[in-house]
């Protein structure tokens, strides 16, 4: 039996990093007017979620067995996939909008209002 690998990083640090990145991403989404920039911030948020999953996978793998770690990684895997799909569609949307309004300033897209 090969010895288990000791990872000297407490999972709480990873979680904190995830929290900080999440806050940064949220601020970016709420405060920027450029559509592309909003998407980038969104990617940051998704990555923070991935980090959180990894942290938990790490911790609970130690407590409950390696299968949990595997599930955690798979979750991240799928999230990456979905994020990619979402980015593709979103960017296509922006292209279409730019064709329409010659701008990607989000504040200008307010026809669907009262």
């Amino acid at each position, binding site marked *: 039996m090969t010895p288990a690998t000791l990872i000297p*990083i407490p999972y709480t640090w990873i979680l904190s990093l995830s929290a900080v990145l999440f806050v940064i991403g949220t601020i970016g989404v709420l405060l920027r007017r450029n559509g592309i920039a909003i998407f980038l911030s969104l990617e940051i948020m998704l990555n923070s979620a991935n980090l959180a999953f990894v942290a938990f996978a790490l911790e609970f793998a130690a407590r409950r067995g390696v299968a949990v770690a595997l599930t955690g990684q798979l979750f991240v895997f799928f999230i990456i996939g979905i994020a990619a799909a979402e980015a593709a569609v979103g960017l296509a949307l922006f292209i279409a909008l730019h064709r329409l309004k010659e701008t990607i300033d989000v504040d200008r897209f307010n026809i669907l209002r009262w």
Partner: protein
Amino acid sequence: MVTYVFLVAALLAVVFSLVTIAHRSPVVNVLSLAIVFFALSAIYAMVGMDFLAAIQLIVYAGAVLVLFLFVIMLLNIRSVERLGSGRPLQAALGAAAAIAIGVAIILVIARQSPSFGSLLPDTGKGTAYSIGRALMTTHLFPFEFVSVLLLAALVGALVLARKEER
């Protein structure tokens, strides 16, 4: 030693994510995001999820960010406004809300008992093998589902982006 690497990677991630959201030039935003991804990938590798690290780099940094760059160049977006310009009230509220959420999460995390160093047992076969096997057996349905989703996204992107035929 690993701990220090982790701290450096974390610092890089935070700093460059700040740049991503703050800088005016979209190209700079994208490239700094790339660096964030690299840092994250390093962290994944450090905790033993090497396949995941590779996927992160290939898919995220390699494909998604390149897509972003293409679109920026296509739409010829030069410089944009500053962070938080227009609607100052919204900006303030948003920032406050975000920070509040962050504080709440940190507080929850602080309650956990940090065990220094977690044990990751070695299966002897490598993570790629394990992940691949799991995808094809126990997690087959989500796997196929995501592929269908990607197909839908592909078609959707095509339809949305093409020129209107008069």
